[in-house]
């Protein structure tokens, strides 16, 4: 105990930090806990989850050696075991239950895309309104290299769940992910090369243009110069499932094919969805690791310098074009992996998935969470992806139940509108409201990086130094 106290004395502000966080946890946590408990969510799971959250949040873990890994490890453990306890969790009022594992996969993939976009928007400060183009490139790469689309040829390499006599290019999804990432990064460089000379809003518009061209190319790509490249509006499906093949399965026990996988573990049935979930978790971890290492690298510091003041950065010897292109390539890289993995998860690629809405949706994640902050982007991305997948539907159900004239439920309070409102239909408007509110009242996002916050509060000199020539 003396040792412990001595250790604490070396960090005089430790108690202060803990007290502040404890106070914050009480102020925000108690009402939340009470609301949940009153609304009928009182359960062992609620108490346990609250305890875990308090233990992870309140102590200043980063004051201990290896302490910062406690929070990361704790969150990671919660995420890894999510499929096991998801069914036993409580329900929130209005929002409904916790997201299903299936939604969890989508959330993780969107988190990955948001992290990729965060490199471009959050680190380098380049507004990219066409990020969906990278997502589409990744998805179509997966479709080309792991489906029957090119049935003129017959290439098989490590693909699982496909009969060797089936025509088409069938390459193992793990390799395809890498191909997609590299291919998309190259496309990012090609797009970036002519456009990154532009500043600010002009760059945004050009990327928007690319983002709008891409779905049209995908839709009309079934008769491009007489070739069927994208199979037009029908899209390409099915895409081969991921898996490690029978040989590796026999040798090490890793699953051979995600789609046919089925086993029981800790009293819980593990099927493909859980495998997709854990694989997505690994991919997100890789993305986070790369994001952190990139941010702290020489390149990352150059990005931040460009973001804060392009002219000053150039004067300090930061090569503008090269640095920006790298930001683009890195962002595109992760967008490509995410797109390819999403295509493999949904087992198909359709041109209608790549509209401008998705670009803004991902941008909204980055902005809501806090540009440049990895925790913020993860939380923003997860929350918005959950809203889009399940949350809005649940909220809409709750609203219609209580306020719709068509409701016959016993929960009905009073009639605000006559027919049921399809709330998910208005998702883009809701994201629009989020964008406007965040920009007006908390432009640095919910969990900002302190540096970005200062930029938004005090302003940066991103105006060009010289004026329009008349």
């Amino acid at each position, binding site marked *: 105990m003396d040792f412990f106290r001595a250790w604490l004395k070396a960090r005089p502000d430790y108690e202060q930090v803990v007290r502040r966080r404890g106070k914050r946890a009480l102020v925000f946590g108690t009402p939340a806990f009470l609301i949940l408990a009153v609304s009928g969510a009182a359960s062992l799971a609620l108490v346990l989850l609250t305890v875990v959250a308090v233990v992870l949040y309140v102590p200043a873990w980063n004051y201990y050696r290896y302490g910062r890994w406690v929070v990361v490890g704790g969150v990671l453990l919660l995420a890894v075991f999510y499929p096991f306890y998801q069914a036993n969790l409580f329900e929130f009022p209005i929002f409904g239950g916790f997201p299903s594992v299936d939604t969890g996969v989508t959330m993780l993939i969107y988190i990955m895309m948001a992290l990729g976009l965060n490199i471009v928007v959050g680190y380098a*400060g380049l*507004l990219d*309104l066409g990020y969906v183009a990278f997502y589409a490139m990744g998805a179509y790469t997966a479709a080309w290299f792991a489906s029957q689309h090119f049935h003129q040829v017959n290439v098989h390499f490590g693909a699982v769940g496909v009969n060797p006599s089936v025509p088409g290019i069938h390459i193992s999804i793990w390799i395809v992910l890498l191909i997609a990432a590299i291919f998309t990064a190259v496309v990012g460089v090609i797009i970036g090369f*002519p*456009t990154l*000379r*532009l*500043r*600010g*809003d*002009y760059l*945004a*518009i*050009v990327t*928007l*243009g*690319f983002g*709008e*061209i891409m779905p*049209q*190319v995908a*839709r*009309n790509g079934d008769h491009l110069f007489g070739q069927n490249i994208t199979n037009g509006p029908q899209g390409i499906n099915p895409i081969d499932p991921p898996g490690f093949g029978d040989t590796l399965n026999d040798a090490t026990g890793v699953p051979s094919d995600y789609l046919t996988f089925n086993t029981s573990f800790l009293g819980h049935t593990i099927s493909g969805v859980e495998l997709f979930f854990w694989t997505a978790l690994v991919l997100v971890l890789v993305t986070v690791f790369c994001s952190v290492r990139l941010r702290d690298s020489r390149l990352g510091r150059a990005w931040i310098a460009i973001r804060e003041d392009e002219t000053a950065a150039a004067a300090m010897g930061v090569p503008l074009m090269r640095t920006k292109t790298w930001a683009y390539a890195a962002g595109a890289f992760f967008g490509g992996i995410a797109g390819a993995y999403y295509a493999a998860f949904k087992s198909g690629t359709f041109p209608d998935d790549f509209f*401008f809405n998705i670009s*803004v949706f991902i*941008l909204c994640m980055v*902005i809501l969470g806090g540009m440049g902050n990895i925790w913020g982007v993860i939380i923003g991305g997860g929350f918005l992806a959950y809203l889009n997948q399940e949350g809005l539907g649940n909220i809409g159900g709750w609203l219609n139940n209580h306020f719709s004239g068509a409701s016959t439920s016993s929960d009905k309070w009073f009639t605000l509108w006559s027919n049921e409102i399809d709330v998910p*239909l*208005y998702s*883009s*408007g*809701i*994201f*629009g*409201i*989020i*964008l*406007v509110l965040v*920009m*007006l009242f908390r*432009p640095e996002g919910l969990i900002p990086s302190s540096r970005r916050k200062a*930029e*938004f509060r005090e*302003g*940066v000199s*991103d*105006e*060009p130094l*010289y*004026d*329009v*020539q*008349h």
Partner: protein
Amino acid sequence: MSNDQARIRFAPAFRPSPLSVSGAILVGLLIIWLGVNFVKEPSEFYGLFLIGLTNGAVYGLVALGYSLVYGILELINFAHGDVFMLGGMLVATMTTAWFATTSGLGLWVGISAMLLVTVAFCATINTTIELVAYRRLRNAPRLAPLITAIGMSFILQNIGLRWKGARPTSVPDILPRGEVFTLGGVAYTWNRLIVVLFTIPVLLALIWLVQRTRQGKAMRATAQDREAAAMMGINVNRTISFTFLLAGGLAGAAGLLYALYFTNVRFDEGFRIGLIAFTAAVLGGIGNLPGAVLGSMVIAMIESFNNGFGWATPGSDWSQSIVFSILILILVFRPEGLLGERTPEGA
């Protein structure tokens, strides 16, 4: 000695940069494409030309709004296209309710009344947006108002979706369809001419307003330097509000013409037309009013020729891609546009 003299050059040799060469090649290919198609099907050419002229007039009205706002705030007001579409929806409602069968003088009085109502409606929306969403962010980093503008655009789109539903709303066809003149065997009807006849005076009036009036002088001063303008006694907030009022009014007028001419409106059409109009404004030189209309004409012609021609033409499947390719090419090769001034982006 002689070596020194040899170094003196009197005039720099004419060396076009690779950029301008490739730009010239592109324009040349475009002209060849037009020429070949003209020789193949002259009557088709005239027909498409007239369609392009009319569409260009509609785009022009929207593009003028973009240009005005960009000129004064350097803000791409994404919500502009959606304000325009809400105006179109209001016209759809009013026409269906009141003017389904009117003709003669009553029709013109009715259309003028609708014009006033729509202009007032859209001007109010646009000014409110500026007041609520953009004013607070005037000194924020430039990307903040841009992101807010995208958010506003989505909000307005969803208001339109809630109002009229996801399917196109048809508008009663009340414009007269009499023939005005024929060009190369193709008739030009009144309903098209009205659109063009509307845009040109509006452009002239705008130029007069910006160049000759006190309010226009205040706008130009605010565009150049807000702080200095404020020091000279110009009420900057009021001037910017006035600009948004003007742009909203233009959007309303464009919405009226669009709804009556195309006879249907849809909630997401505004965003699409808005992007085309923005491209046109960039093509003409953003901030430059005649440039906006010229750019709109060019874009509309290219779009219309592309939809109709037979020889070496991508066709209507690709019209959006072509418009955005033009946008990208213009921004990369000539950011100042056809008639614009050189901006720092163009260096």
